[in-house]
């Protein structure tokens, strides 16, 4: 049945139509796919940048054109014109020369070819000869002859070639002599217009002109064709030294940020909007001369985010503020990127990226916020409860509580523990009670009993003893004078003496407010006289006070009372509640029967002690304070050494709705440490217990920066900042400087002298105007000692640090006795010498004896006839006239104290070494050669200075400095 076979099951025209529709779909789909693949978000961005660059370049071009020295250009053009006319005038001679040159060209060519050909023959023959000679062949001798032959020819050709070349040069010279140096002029003209040309070229590249070039611009960047010389393309740096840790394997970072941030490493886009803005501080970042060149360091190692991304969201940008977020939501439909382990750091925390590479330093250069944060962490003592890498081995942040009865009483301690800021608003002691998760009436009742227990425990577990009664009574006004003048205010602050909030260094020691309500007078007296007697590890130095002075200071401090409304006293005991609390504590550790038995066997006092001990354990008081029975207890907080890398989902956000990031969590935690308990049902023991620290929002941000900087990832050796021996010495010294707050009084390493504000204030009280007081305060503050290593001799400094003696009689501020060990002393010495890059520890003194004539000249110069040095400077027992506040250091000490080279520099220009010093400048640095007296040593200023130096070195005896 053939007919049946002809049968079609489906209508072919219908199928054709379906085919057509499907194919159209396929075509559109494919085109769409190509477009989708091609059109990435960075393309329009790069186009925008081209337009921007064109705008800038046009501007620069206009300026460059204006900047061209038109006269010069005109001159050159005229000269060129002249060359032109001359070559027309002297056509005939020129033609002759040209003819000559043509002939010469041929000659050069022939001689050169001859030489080269012969040279290759020579090489071949030499090789053949060497082979034959090596084989001791009889034919070697003949070959050698041939070699000499060829060599002779070679020399000839060389000569001929040289002659031809000489002739060539000669012809050129003649031509120039005839018409002028056209090539040279051209070059000059090019040089003059170099900037214009360069900018014109650049402009042509970013903004092509003409239809063809403009069309080509589109074609080269068209989909599917953009593999041929596109100018829109992904920009990347492959950073072999910057590893990205992708869990157990590391790969080089491939930073593509500059695909959009095209202006980041180019000057000139400072005022343009992101993503084109020039990166700030080019001298530190990105520029190739900076320590962080972009092709070595890249971007994401600091900023984080996805290195390979070329899309705004994909790169995991993170807004720095709610305003920025709102703006991004509008412009980029921003939302947190899912599945990104390392989103970008908001720029306010960017300094937390410094630490991984800058390990082992006290402060990171230019990282102000991080440095501030680090100082704060040390001050508030985060490391007491949280293990933190880099903060090991530090002293506990708070005072020891092992001799508490010597110092104060429970009536004070109870309300203090309950609410420290109520007693002293500026204290570092954090607050544990009355916070968001323990303020309900039940909580308050419970915590009252807890504090009672702690107070009982602390006052029970103290060393027996105390201080004797005061030997007399002091005078408070005299005491206040002492406190404000001897230097206490370098480390301590007293609210009523402050005009503005004290700096961090002046909060190094406890704020003294209320001390009169807190400490017993006997304790204050004993403490200010010799702090180490009470607490051997204290950082409070000995001010070498006399008994009288100590009594006065004690009397003054006794007048600093607690704020009004604050009352000493202890909450009522509640035996029933206390029993419950004690039982609760026991139940967690033993069976119910044992609990009952134990309870029955304990007295009320024992229970109270037990509760106190449990609570000290729970709240971790021993993290900051030395407490008997807790000497070796490990800290209670989470380790923070890798907090900056902690998985965000391991942080419990509870029911608090904040952005789920590390920084937001930590910030919130510092703001309200108990906030994540909100809405949770917890037993007292389960509740969060981190206390509330007294930090301003800026301080909090700084602390968060430090915590974020503690990351797990280790950078490669090649990219870390390695300390050489000098820097190691510097850092060791800085550590000590930091620990003893030297910069509270001294200007050192570019920072410090915080005490100056108090001295200025004092001067103002004495009747000076504000500006004058400020400038005079420099002279009446402890000295600048950044250059101490260059100034003084190491052996003298060693002795001085051990046992300071007054150098500057006009200062009422005292250099205290810190009681440094030999090791610490040496560390400081090395630090000072490293800081001023002078030799450590010894140097050869100038050869003595000096010529008598020189000494005589020196003496003459220091006399009243000339510089009159001793009108201010003391000289051993010989004191200058007038009030000691006008005196200057003892020159008899110079010999043992000062480095000779420094004396010269000092006399030459004291203001350079010590801006603001009282020492007059006798030599004008501006016109040094003529500024000295003319009648001494022939008017040679250098010799005069040297003579004075030598004279000073003869003063005093060898050991007069000690």
């Amino acid at each position, binding site marked *: 049945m*053939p007919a049946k*076979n*002809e049968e079609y*099951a489906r209508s072919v025209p219908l199928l054709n139509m379906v085919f057509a529709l499907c194919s159209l779909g396929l075509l559109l789909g494919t085109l769409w*796919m*190509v477009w*989708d*693949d091609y059109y*990435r978000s960075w393309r329009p961005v790069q186009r925008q940048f081209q337009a921007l660059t064109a705008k800038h370049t046009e501007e620069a071009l206009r300026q460059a054109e204006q900047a061209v020295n038109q006269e010069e250009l005109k001159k050159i053009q005229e000269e060129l014109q002249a060359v032109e006319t001359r070559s027309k005038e002297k056509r005939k001679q020129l033609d002759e020369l040209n003819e000559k040159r043509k002939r010469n060209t041929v000659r050069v060519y022939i001689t050169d070819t001859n030489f080269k050909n012969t040279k290759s023959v020579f090489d071949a023959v030499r090789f053949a000869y060497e082979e034959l000679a090596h084989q001791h062949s009889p034919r070697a001798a003949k070959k050698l002859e041939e070699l000499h032959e060829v060599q002779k020819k070679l020399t000839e050709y060389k000569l001929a070639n040289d002659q031809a070349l000489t002739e060539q040069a000669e012809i050129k010279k003649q031509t120039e002599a005839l018409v002028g140096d056209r090539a040279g002029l051209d070059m000059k003209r090019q040089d003059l217009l170099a900037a214009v040309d360069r900018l014109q070229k650049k402009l042509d590249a970013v903004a092509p002109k003409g239809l063809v070039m403009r069309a080509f611009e589109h074609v080269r960047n068209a989909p599917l064709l953009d*593999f041929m010389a596109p100018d829109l393309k*992904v920009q990347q740096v492959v950073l072999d030294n910057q590893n990205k840790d*992708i869990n*157990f*394997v*590391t*790969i080089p970072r*491939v930073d593509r940020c500059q695909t959009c941030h095209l202006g980041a490493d180019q000057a000139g886009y400072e005022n343009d909007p992101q993503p084109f803005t020039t990166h700030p501080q080019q001298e530190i970042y990105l520029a190739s001369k900076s320590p962080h060149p972009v092709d070595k360091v890249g971007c994401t190692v600091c900023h984080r985010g*996805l290195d*390979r*991304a*070329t*899309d705004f969201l*994909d790169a995991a940008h993170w807004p720095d503020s709610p305003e920025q977020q709102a703006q991004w939501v509008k412009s980029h439909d921003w939302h947190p990127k899912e*599945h990104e382990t390392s989103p970008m750091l908001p720029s306010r925390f960017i300094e937390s990226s410094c630490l991984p590479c800058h390990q082992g330093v006290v402060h990171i250069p230019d990282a102000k916020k991080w440095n501030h944060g680090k100082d704060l962490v040390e001050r508030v003592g985060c490391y007491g409860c949280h293990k933190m890498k880099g903060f090991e081995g530090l002293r506990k942040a708070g005072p020891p509580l092992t001799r508490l009865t010597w110092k104060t009483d429970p009536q004070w301690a109870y309300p203090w523990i309950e609410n420290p800021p109520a007693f002293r608003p500026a204290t570092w002691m954090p607050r544990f009670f009355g916070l968001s998760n323990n303020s309900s009436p039940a909580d308050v009742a419970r915590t009252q009993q807890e504090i009672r227990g702690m107070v009982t425990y602390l006052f029970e577990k103290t060393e027996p003893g105390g201080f004797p009664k005061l030997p007399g009574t002091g005078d408070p006004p005299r005491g206040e004078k002492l406190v404000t003048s001897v230097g206490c205010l370098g480390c301590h602050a007293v609210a009523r003496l402050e005009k503005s909030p004290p700096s961090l260094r002046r909060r190094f020691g406890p704020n003294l407010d209320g001390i009169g309500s807190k400490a017993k007078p006997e304790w204050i007296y004993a403490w200010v006289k010799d702090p180490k007697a009470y607490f051997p590890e204290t950082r409070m130095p000995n001010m070498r006070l006399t008994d009288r002075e100590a009594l006065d200071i004690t009397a003054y401090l006794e007048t600093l009372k607690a704020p009004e409304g604050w009352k000493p006293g202890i909450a009522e005991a509640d035996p029933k509640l206390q029993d419950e609390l004690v039982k609760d504590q026991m139940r967690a550790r033993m069976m119910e029967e044992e609990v009952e038995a134990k309870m029955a066997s304990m007295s009320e006092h024992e229970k109270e002690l037990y509760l106190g001990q449990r609570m000290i354990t729970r709240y971790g008081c021993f993290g900051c304070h030395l407490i008997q029975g807790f000497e070796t207890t490990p800290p209670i907080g989470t380790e923070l050494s890798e907090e900056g890398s902690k998985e965000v989902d391991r942080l419990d956000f509870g029911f608090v709705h904040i952005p789920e990031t590390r920084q937001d969590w930590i910030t919130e935690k510092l703001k309200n440490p108990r906030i994540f308990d909100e809405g949770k049902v917890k037993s007292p023991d389960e509740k969060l217990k981190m206390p509330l620290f007294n930090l301003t929002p800026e301080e909090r941000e700084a602390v968060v920066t430090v915590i974020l900087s503690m990351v797990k990832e280790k950078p490669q050796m090649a990219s870390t900042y390695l300390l050489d021996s000098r820097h190691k010495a510097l850092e060791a010294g800085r550590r000590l400087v930091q620990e003893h707050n030297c910069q509270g009084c001294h200007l050192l390493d570019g920072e410090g002298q915080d005490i100056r504000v108090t001295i200025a204030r004092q001067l103002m009280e004495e009747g000076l105007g504000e500006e004058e007081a400020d400038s005079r305060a420099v002279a009446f503050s402890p000295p600048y000692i950044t250059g101490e290593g260059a100034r003084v001799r190491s052996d003298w400094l060693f002795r001085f640090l051990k046992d300071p003696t007054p150098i500057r009689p006009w200062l009422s501020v005292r250099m205290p006795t810190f009681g440094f060990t030999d090791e610490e002393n040496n560390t400081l010495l090395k630090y000072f010498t490293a800081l001023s890059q002078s030799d450590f520890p010894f140097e050869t003194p100038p050869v003595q004896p000096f010529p008598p004539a020189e000494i005589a000249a020196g003496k003459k110069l220091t006399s009243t006839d000339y510089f009159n040095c001793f009108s201010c400077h003391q000289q051993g027992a010989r004191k200058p006239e007038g009030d000691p506040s006008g005196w200057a250091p003892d020159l008899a000490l110079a010999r043992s104290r000062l480095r000779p080279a420094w004396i010269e520099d000092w006399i030459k220009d004291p203001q350079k070494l010590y801006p603001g010093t009282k020492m007059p400048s006798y030599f004008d640095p501006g016109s040094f050669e003529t500024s000295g007296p003319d009648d001494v040593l022939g008017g040679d200023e250098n010799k005069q200075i040297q003579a004075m130096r030598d004279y000073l070195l003869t003063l005093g005896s060898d050991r007069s400095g000690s």
Partner: protein
Amino acid sequence: MADAPRKSLFTQFRESQIWNSIFRHGPPDNTRNRSLAVLTNVFLHLHPVKVRKSGLRLKYTWCAGGTTFFLFLVETVTGLLLMFYYRPTAEYAFSDILDLRAQVPLGIMREIHRWGAHAMVIAVWLHMLRVFMTGSYKPPREFNWNIGVLLLVLTLLLSFTGYLLPWDQLAMWAVTVGSNMARATPFLGNEGPGAALLKVGDISLVTAGDDARFALLAGRFVGAAALLRFYVLHCVGIPLVAAVLMAVHFWRVRKDGGISGPL
């Protein structure tokens, strides 16, 4: 048709030597040529010349088997292209995928490959459902049903081995969870029943270091070795076996009487 009909360009081409050297039959508008069109084409001669009309109906076949095969081809082509830009090592696998997504021209291959794979799993299940619902596994097609079951398993394995290759958390842990079951294989897995019995003295013979899962992963956990192993299985091993079985499957469809239909 009085005028000499002007031949269209296409017609001219069709009468050229080139055309005739490729297609050795006239236009397929009669039985003979329609048969030849299928018989003389290496790709089409997978088909018989004629099929049952009932078997032609989409409502009968759902085109599920054909779809599966087409998706297999799509996976082969896109997979081959992806191999140019993907390195199966712990260091590079992940970042190569990132680059495929954002930088490689036509990196959309990866999407096509992945969604094609998912579609293929679904298609093969639907094919099985169709074959079951029409009773087509019944004699004489029992054996081909068995081949089909094997192909279904291979499809799942292909998808499973490919799932690891992006080397992200999704991949690694899906494969970890998936392969953990092998740990419990009776006697062959170290946590399987009976494994504890296989020991000589104190020495266990079946441990995490030599059990079924170990053989699958070339290690105690999903690591770089597993990645390479899965890669080779995914790109070469399983596709080869599947291709052979597919050949058998298609051949047997014809030999067992074409697409099934009521007897």
